[in-house]
């Protein structure tokens, strides 16, 4: 009874800030400017399918790079003493205390033509364009979302009981086998939530591509632009993105459940 009463403010919050906006998006997506039912918005939205696929591609690449970087790091952190773990995790969080835009600007400064990195590379005779391409966007994304991959994997790994590792050694596992047979299978839930936490925002974020990607926008930027002139088409694109991400989440959860049972 009591718990029900305390949940009312949250229910109200969700209603005002989640459910109603969602219904509004759906309403706009299926109506034209006169308010009549229309699927024309989705036809308009299909103009952006290339950007859409490009966004998913960038998100996928960024997520994979995050995973490759984060997994060994999370693993080695989880092997440290608890006090060390706390300090390292805190340092991982420090960049997140800074404004999102500032961090992107920092990358613009680092990567820009005649910027520090460009100067160093041209010194070695490498004449590359570091900014305004997909690579720069991926770098920005990975930098932005790496902690979201490390933290869930670390959380799961640090909970693996030492006695399980000892049990594996006891039963004849050398170091590599302990990892393959025990640590990796038990860390899969962390990987799943890490992928989810990185893929979803990278697919839908905006600004990163605007600053680092030159002319190549991502779907988040497109939604922002389109919304400024046409709520209906903007809503339609947002809705499609939402459905795709929802599908992705369902898929990941299925995969996670299966993995946990069969190893």
């Amino acid at each position, binding site marked *: 009874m009591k718990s029900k009463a305390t949940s009312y403010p949250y229910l109200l919050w969700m209603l005002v800030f989640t459910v109603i906006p969602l219904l509004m998006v759906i309403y706009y997506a299926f109506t034209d400017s006169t308010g009549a039912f229309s699927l024309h918005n989705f036809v308009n939205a299909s103009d952006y399918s290339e950007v859409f696929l490009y966004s998913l591609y960038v998100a996928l690449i960024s997520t994979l790079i995050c995973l490759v970087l984060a997994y060994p790091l999370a693993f080695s952190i989880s092997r440290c003493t608890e006090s060390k773990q706390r300090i390292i995790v805190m340092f991982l969080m420090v960049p997140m205390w800074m404004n999102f835009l500032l961090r992107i600007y920092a990358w613009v400064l680092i990567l820009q033509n005649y910027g520090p990195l460009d100067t160093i590379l041209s010194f070695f005779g490498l004449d590359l364009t570091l900014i305004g391409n997909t690579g720069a966007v991926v770098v920005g994304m990975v930098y932005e979302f790496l902690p979201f991959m490390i933290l869930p994997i670390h959380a799961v790994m640090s909970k693996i*009981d030492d*006695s*399980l590792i*000892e*049990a*594996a*050694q*006891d*039963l*004849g*596992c*050398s170091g590599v*086998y302990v990892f393959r*047979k*025990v640590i990796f*299978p*038990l860390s899969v839930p962390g990987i799943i939530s890490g992928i989810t936490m990185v893929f979803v925002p990278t697919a839908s974020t905006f600004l990163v591509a605007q600053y680092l990607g030159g002319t190549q926008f991502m779907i988040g930027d497109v939604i922002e632009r389109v919304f400024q002139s046409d709520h209906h088409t903007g809503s339609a694109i947002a809705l499609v993105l939402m459905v795709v991400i929802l599908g992705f989440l369902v898929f990941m959860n299925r995969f996670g459940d299966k993995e*946990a*049972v069969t*190893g």
Partner: protein
Amino acid sequence: MQKDAVVKLEDISFKYSNEVILNHINLEIYDKEFITLLGPSGCGKTTTLRIIAGFETPDEGSVYFEGEKINDVPPHKRSVNTVFQKYALFPHLNVFDNVAFGLKLKKLSKKEIEQKVKAMLAVVDLKGYEKRPVKALSGGQQQRVAIARALVCDPKVVLLDEPLGALDLKLRKDMQIELKQLQQKTQKTFVYVTHDQEEALTMSDRVVVMNNGVIAQIGTPEEVYNEPVNAFVADFIGEANIINGTMLEDCKVKILGKTLNCVDKGFGKNAPVDVVIRPEDIEVIPPEEAQLVGVVEDVVFKGVHFEMSVRCENCQWLIHSTVAQKVGEKIGMTVSPDNIQIMHKMFLNPNNEIFTEVYYSDKEQNTTTFLLEGEEVTIPDTFFEEGEKLHIVLPPDALYIAGDGVGQLDEVYIESVIWKGEHNEIILESDERKWLMHSDVDEQVATYVPVCFDFSKATVERAEEAEDEV
């Protein structure tokens, strides 16, 4: 019993961040025996087991397995398997895969693995549970899986680290008998760690009683129960009346002012000793025929017997008898000579004698200060010249634990607490020496406490040539 040592620990010492966990341990474990490491928490029994398993490397000493030194052999190459305290079953695998884990690593054929796992699951009464996830099993079933997982690898030695600790009493009793039968059926060496003395007595061929990182006694369950080597063992195993006594001569011991006949010899004349009498060895007789006479203070029915508390002189005696006496009744007590067990004192400086010199003194305040383990300690109402040699005698009741947390010696380790009929005898360990303290309070062993001195109960005198004696 065969006398081939499968595992031999030679002069093993182990420290963990400067704390001595094991202090020169020597132990031989024979083939096919059920040996139990028994002791209170923090005595080093689990560390000993982990050294045999290979999870810890001793700082000093050697571990031998079938005559071969294995100090540097990693756990996965040792022919021992462990049953862990909280089972440590792999949560991502089902029962079959948990048990098959070790066999798969040995690269056996699928058919062979299946055969062995099935056979082992039948041994531990888990036929038909192959496909169940381990999380869906009860504590007792998980325990069986853990045992099967260790046994299926066919190790020479099975190490069990308090495996029954998490089970309820009834299940634990059943599992004790099952484990013992399993050990006899499989003909393997079991090394079992527990703090439960009853468990140790029930299952073991031999019991190793440990305390404070050393082995107090090794023997059969009967030996450690009937012939404990010191007050710690007597107190830890079973219930006991432990009383201070004096060995007048061979076969004559004086307790509570009465001389009793016993069967122990070789303690010398007028030697202070600890005397152990088990509660079931005391016979109740009419008071006029008895040397020891007491008044019944309390009677509790325990199912098989009555547990009676009897006050005799200043001492509280515990008696187990099938016949209940009335509370307030005067009874006589007698013990047959071979049921009186005489033991050497655990502690040889019962008056806490200190030889030191005056650090500084204050004539006006009438105080004398000396240095004790780097701390200044001031004796009130006593004056000696600076630099003078002192002989301080602090009888056990001059020590007390500081209630406000600030003692003259902070951080003193409580090594043992033994009830001696009228008070607890507590052995304390500070940085440089051990202390004997009397207390009515049951202090917690293996904790650190601040200790104060009551100098009104102490004697402080000028030390003469006495220094040579210590």
